């Protein structure tokens, strides 16, 4: 596995360097408010993040400047790789039993359905998640945030969706964590999700958030989805029917992939 160099990851405050984030949260808030204002005035409706969103500093040199070229998908693009029980063990969906002991934190279940843009369930498909522990710390070697590592928690899980497109993970509620985008920058608590559809063109990676997080308004990654309704689609609902007596709290989050471009026959839909 290749090493990484995430210079916007947290580094200890003692390690001040030339690339230290100088901008204040107020400066960031002003920039984000300006973009919101322009968006509201545009009268347009956006559903995806902006790739060019300067308040997220690392995006400045990493976004394409040209619009994507529209094209009709060819045969290979109308299919996605198949995953099965050879690839994923059932126990990989429980992040609380992976390393022997019990991890520390609030035990939760995250569950929901994965649908395509026409409302068809995405069946037998791979879902991968990764997240920080309850203290906001990743196992990742470059995560230097001085919060404790939990020896009983890797924060990595996988599952296959069911016939109804459902997925379910048992995990620990992740903590917020600091990063270097600007002074006193904190990410709202989130779980990273990696998703496949029936077409490779539906491939996506995103982040799920928890309801009522006070950091939403301050976070340029969340705010890069400039439409408030669109970004709220990343926030799970607390669902008491998912919670379990004296055991865990339940969150419900449904995911919609882009529309499939395959011509679906009755046969395909029943596979």
């Amino acid at each position, binding site marked *: *596995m*290749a090493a990484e160099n*995430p210079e916007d990851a947290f580094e200890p405050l003692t390690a001040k360097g030339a690339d230290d984030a100088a901008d204040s949260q107020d400066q960031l808030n002003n920039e984000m408010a300006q973009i919101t204002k322009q968006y509201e005035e545009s009268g347009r409706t956006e*559903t*995806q*993040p*902006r*790739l060019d969103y300067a308040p*997220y500093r*690392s*995006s*400045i*040199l*990493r976004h*394409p*400047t*040209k*619009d*994507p*070229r529209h*094209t009709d*998908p*060819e045969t*290979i*693009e109308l*299919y996605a*790789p*198949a*995953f*099965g029980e*050879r*690839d*994923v063990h059932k126990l990989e969906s429980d992040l609380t039993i992976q390393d022997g002991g019990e991890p520390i934190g609030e035990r939760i279940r995250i569950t929901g359905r994965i649908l*395509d843009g*026409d*409302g068809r369930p995405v069946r037998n498909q791979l879902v*991968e998640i*990764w997240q*920080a522990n309850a203290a906001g710390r*990743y*196992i*990742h070697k*470059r995560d230097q945030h001085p919060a404790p590592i939990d020896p009983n928690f*890797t*924060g990595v899980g996988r599952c296959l969706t069911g016939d109804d497109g459902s997925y379910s993970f048992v995990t620990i509620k992740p903590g917020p964590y600091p990063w270097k985008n600007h002074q006193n920058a904190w990410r709202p608590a989130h779980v990273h999700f990696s998703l496949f559809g029936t077409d*490779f*063109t539906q*491939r*996506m*990676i*995103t*982040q799920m958030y928890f309801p009522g997080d006070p950091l939403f308004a301050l976070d340029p*990654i969340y705010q*890069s*989805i400039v439409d408030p309704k669109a*970004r709220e*689609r990343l926030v799970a609902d607390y669902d008491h029917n998912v919670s379990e007596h004296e055991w865990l709290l339940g969150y419900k989050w449904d995911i*919609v*992939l*882009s529309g499939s471009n395959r011509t679906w026959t009755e046969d395909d839909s029943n596979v």
Partner: protein
Amino acid sequence: MSENTQRLVPTPGQTIGPFYGYALPYENGENLVDRSHPGSVRLHGTVYDGHGVPVPDSMLEIWQADENGKVSQETGSLIRDGYTFTGFGRVAVDNEGQYTFTTVNPGPTEAGKAPFICLTVFARGLLNRLFTRIYLPEDTEALANDPLLSGLSEDERATLVATREADGSLRFDVHLQGDGETVFLAYPGLE
């Protein structure tokens, strides 16, 4: 077709962030076939940012047909058995932004079509994934007739056609921005 006539609004994407390295890449993710496979080909290149600086925290995925143009629907991409061609690969670039897949040249999925490999790009700092195609350079007639390529300028087209190197490997660099910016793709139903 589905009973729903109203299309649902897709969930927004978000950046892969910096900490995917221990979660997503997996053993032999970049080896769709073994190096000893008779038709094995090295597909390699570098991911660059808008200043032409290599991006050290990008992850790439490829999806392709086999040598005969057949689309695999075999499972086993995550735990490879060394024999089954699943058509899917994943790799994290190294500290110098370089990647290598070991795969095969895809055949045309239909007679006369220009064969290509689908590529998806993820990176810290990239707020949503990007799609593109890696075309094989050999079938010049098919390339000339390709509906996507024929609508591009010469410079744009060059960003999508891999270079065949003397040792038989394919070179394909990704330029997220700036000089030689790679042509990225949007599909119907996708913003």
